[in-house]
């Protein structure tokens, strides 16, 4: 019998007693006796529909068919199976990371578990290759408040790394970041600071001072200082985070502008897009802080607003291909194309006002009148930004004159 659920894949019921002794099927997520089977791959089992849905959203939708050869392998195909498992490890790692970037800790768990399982299969237990999986699981559990489990996972990861001195700085950086998160969650701010300090150090060594990874480390550290009410340090670190993101997004914008005539060149991985989701969360938090801050640094507010605008432009672009033909059903002329491009720059600033689909797609209206209204609103927002900047320049020149009297 099959359960119909087109959004979360199809399942069919199984009769546990039908399987030979020793070959009972267990749930993919909780290892309890299974009653459902994925109707597509038929090699994945679940105890109930909730777990099936969780797994589908978490990872199974992406790897359903890839599991078939791995779970129905013949003994003489070991090398090929190992390669397929490594492919699965790669996919599940990226998916878990993406979910975590977007703050979807529950959804990240299935992918992280799968990664851990197959890493152990391929490389053996307690191997250094399993550390990324431990870290992903730990991060997901910290986000869900399962701090004891997270601490255990991090200890395991730390032990493996201590046994393997020649591991990469990236793993040490991630370990420190997760320990920092754990200590911050338990209120142990001193240890959190120590771990985040190491996180920033290793991120700088591995990725450089202007990397978004380092920016994230600084952001987390700034959060700890905010909890300690050391606002000047928090402000300074947020400033640095904003600068790094602004530089990064400006470079992406340049690439975007160059490739506007060639939409195919603009396609990006979902992983890169998810990373930007993390950036958007950080910049949003910084903007909120700046707006409430007593010092009211208008330059910084303008900078962060600009970065968010560029982010939304770049994110809106993920649906550019499907919308391009809707707006220009015929071959567009240069004038129309330029108008469209200028709208594309301005429209995402007001994207919140446009109703979205469940999967986050942003619909542009095909009516030119609607587009003009949107463009006008966006221009108003940008001119407001510009006014702020002009005000800032004026204040700074006044301050210079006052200081010269010192």
């Amino acid at each position: 019998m099959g359960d119909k659920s087109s959004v979360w894949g199809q399942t069919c019921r199984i009769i546990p007693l039908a399987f030979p002794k020793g070959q009972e099927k267990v749930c993919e997520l909780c290892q309890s006796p299974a009653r459902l089977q994925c109707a597509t791959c038929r090699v994945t089992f679940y105890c109930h529909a909730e777990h099936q849905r969780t797994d589908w959203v978490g990872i199974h939708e992406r790897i359903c068919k890839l599991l078939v050869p791995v779970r129905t392998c013949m003994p003489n195909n070991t090398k090929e199976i190992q390669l397929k498992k490594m492919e699965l490890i790669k996919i599940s790692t990226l998916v878990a990371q993406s979910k975590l970037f977007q703050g979807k800790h529950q959804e990240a768990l299935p992918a992280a578990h799968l990664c851990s399982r197959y890493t152990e299969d391929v490389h053996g237990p307690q191997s250094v290759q399993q550390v990324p999986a431990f870290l992903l699981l730990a991060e997901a559990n910290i986000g869900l408040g399962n701090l004891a489990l997270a601490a255990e996972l991090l200890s395991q990861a730390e032990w493996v790394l201590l046994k393997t001195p020649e591991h990469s700085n990236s793993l040490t950086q991630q370990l420190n970041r997760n320990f920092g998160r754990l200590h911050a969650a338990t209120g142990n701010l001193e240890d959190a600071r120590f771990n985040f300090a190491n996180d920033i150090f290793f991120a700088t060594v591995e990725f450089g001072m202007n990397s978004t990874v380092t920016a994230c480390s600084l952001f987390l550290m700034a959060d700890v200082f905010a909890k300690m009410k050391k606002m000047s340090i928090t402000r300074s670190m947020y400033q640095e985070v904003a600068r790094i993101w602004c530089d990064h997004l400006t470079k992406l914008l340049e690439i975007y502008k160059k490739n506007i005539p060639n939409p195919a060149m603009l396609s990006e991985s979902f992983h890169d897009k998810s990373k930007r989701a993390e950036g958007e969360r950080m910049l949003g938090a910084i903007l909120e802080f700046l707006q409430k801050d007593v010092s009211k640094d208008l330059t910084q507010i303008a900078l962060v607003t600009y970065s968010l605008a560029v982010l939304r432009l770049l994110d809106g672009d993920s649906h550019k291909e499907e919308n391009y033909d809707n707006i220009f059903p015929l071959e567009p002329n240069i004038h129309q194309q330029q108008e469209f491009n200028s709208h594309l720059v301005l429209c995402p600033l007001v994207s919140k006002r446009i109703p979205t689909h469940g999967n986050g797609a942003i619909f542009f209206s095909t009516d030119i009148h609607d587009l003009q209204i949107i463009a006008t609103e966006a221009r108003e927002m940008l001119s407001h930004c510009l006014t702020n900047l002009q005000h800032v320049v004026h204040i700074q020149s006044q301050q210079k004159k006052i200081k010269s009297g010192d």
Partner: protein
Amino acid sequence: MKRSQNSFRTRRAPEEPTRLPTKQEVTALTADPVQNMCVEMLQRGLHRSFSELFSLLQAARTRRKAAAFTTAAAPLLEEQRDKLETLKLRLIRAEEAGRAGSWSDSCQQRLLLAQYFSSPEDLWLRLHFYHSCADSEQGAASAPAMEAQAFLAEFYLQTDDVEKAKQRAELSLKREDEGMLGLNSQTLMPRFSRVLTEANMRLAEAADDHDTALKLLQESCRTARKIKDESLEGRANLHMGRLYLSKDEHDSAKQLFDSAKEHFLSAQDAGGLAEFYRTMAKFSESKGNTDEVIEFLEKSAEICESSHQHSELADVSMTLCEVYYRKGRYDRAREVALKCFEVSCKAGLTAMLLKAQTMVGISSAQLLIEKHVSGGMSSSPAALDRLLKREKTKACGELNSEPAE
């Protein structure tokens, strides 16, 4: 058994429970010292100090790689603990001062760092901190920043980066004019004025057209007059005089030369006076008056000798030698060339030394020819050839007649 039981009973219990080291303490012992330093800075929220230290360490590594195949490279910055500690201390103080809004103190820390790195192999660090002090956004008008500007202006002048030197000097003087500087910075203004004057003079020398050169020199004169530096004003007048000389405006040139002399005498500037006489020699040369040329060059040489200006003395002596030679006064030419040779040896001026040797040689040869020609001999090439052979044979004979050792 009983003895061991007794010993257990009598053993003193520990007064305090032993404290296990914390994770941080363990890491501090096991980790790299640079890592510990960086982590300490970051724990205190001093991320800008960390960034700057990190980038300096990276720059040091890059420089070391580049110098790997040249002469023995100095140890890496991260291997020099005392320098690292000083860097850490001052960078932290600079950032803390900046955060408290005390930009003058922040610049002061950077200035101290610049002054700390005084050895030649640390010149790049020195320049880095002088720049970061002078170019600081908020503290640019503070006394330490102006001190750093003064160093940079003088440094660029010394290294012939005249445009940069001029820019820095002009910027500082402009800030002073706009009233942006405090009282502590006022004492540095003469240094900037001197750099500006010198830079303008050099730019005038290199200028393509006369008008630009004249404008620059007039500005030099004004600046020198403003700071009441007689010596500098004299040099500016001298340069202007040379400019007029090159345009054949002799009267204007003479006036300026006379004014320059007065300034040099007033400032008791021996170097300036020596240069004045050399310039006067050129002036006389343009009028075709060789006797005056010799007179002025002799005066210049005398001043250079008394004030121990070896390089200038060698120059003047060579010029004088050439004048004597052209005039046919080979005895004087030879004397002066020998003097030039001596001075060049002392001062290590190899090129000049070789030139002086040549002049000694050719002056001596001319003297010899003169001697024999005046004795009634023909000066035809064949006769000279026979003379040379005779002199050679005479010299060999003298050698052979020396008693064997």
